[in-house]
C-alpha cells in the first residue's frame, strides 16, 4: 500500500480500494458553483500514480510523469468527486494509464484522462538474468 503525498492531503483525497475520493471542499472551487479543473486533474493523476506504484514489483523504482491529457466531459459540481485508474499496459519502462472521474453517478463521467508514466528501475533490463 502506497502512502499518499502532501499534495494529495491538500486535495483531501481518501482511498477506498481502487477508488479515490476528493470530498467537496470550498478551496477546490474554480468558478462559482464549479470545481477547478486542475483539482480534478490532480485527483486523477494521483489515482494513476498510486495504482502504478502498487503494480510495480520493485519498491526502489521511481515513477516520473511523462504527460497527461484530460478531457473535461461535464462540469464538476460542488459534490464529492471519485476517480478510478486503469492500467492499459505496464512494461519495464512505461505504464500507460487511463482514469475516469465521476460524481454522483458512476456512469456519468465528468472527466477522463490518459497518462504515461516512466518507470525508472534501479536494475537496468540488460543486467537481468534471462
Amino acid at each position, binding site marked *: 500500500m502506497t502512502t499518499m503525498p502532501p*499534495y494529495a492531503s491538500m486535495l483531501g483525497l481518501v482511498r477506498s480500494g481502487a477508488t479515490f475520493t476528493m470530498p467537496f471542499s470550498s478551496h*477546490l472551487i474554480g468558478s462559482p458553483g464549479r470545481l*477547478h*479543473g*486542475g483539482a480534478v486533474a490532480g485527483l486523477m493523476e494521483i489515482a494513476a500514480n498510486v495504482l502504478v506504484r502498487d503494480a510495480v514489483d520493485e519498491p526502489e523504482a521511481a515513477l*516520473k510523469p511523462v504527460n*497527461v491529457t484530460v478531457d473535461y466531459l461535464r462540469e464538476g459540481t460542488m459534490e464529492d468527486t471519485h476517480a478510478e485508474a486503469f492500467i492499459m499496459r505496464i512494461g519495464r519502462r512505461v505504464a500507460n494509464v487511463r482514469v475516469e472521474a465521476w460524481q454522483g453517478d458512476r456512469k456519468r463521467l465528468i472527466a477522463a484522462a490518459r497518462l504515461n508514466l516512466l518507470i525508472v528501475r534501479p536494475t537496468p533490463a540488460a543486467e537481468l538474468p534471462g
Partner: protein
Amino acid sequence: MNERLLDDTGRMQRFVDRFMSAVPHLQALGIGYVQSGSNWAELRMPYASQLVAYPETGVIASGAIFSLMDSAAGFSVFVTMGRFEPHATLDLRCDYLRPARPGEAVVGRAECYKMTKRVAFVRGIAHDGDPEHPIAHVAGTFMLTGAK
C-alpha cells in the same frame, strides 16, 4: 472593440482582482497574477510544502503544475476576449519535461493563439526561472459557453 475592458491599467487591475478573488482554488495553491498582454497571461505559483508529491526530494506534484497551467490558459482566453465570458476547459494536455526545482516558484505562461466563435485554442509553458528551460509544455482547448 474600443470598449475593451482591459485597455487601461486601473481596469486591468480590477479585472485581475475580480478574477483572483473568484477562484478559491487559486488562493489555496497561492497562485498570483504576474502580467498579461493582448492574448497571453502569466501566473506564478510559489513553492510550498503542501504542493510536494515526492517528500524525499521535495519535488512538487505535476498536478499542481497542471492547475497552474489550466488557470493561466483560462486567463489568456479572458484577456483575448477582453471580458469575463464564461468558458470551460474542453481538454488540456501537459507534457512534463523535467521536475520543478525544489524551493523555486513556478511561472505559467499561456497564450490564446486562435479564437473562433465557440472554441479557444491555447498553448503555454511552465518554468522555474528560465523560460528557455521549461518544466512543462501545455496545449488545450476551451469552449466559450456563453456563445449562442
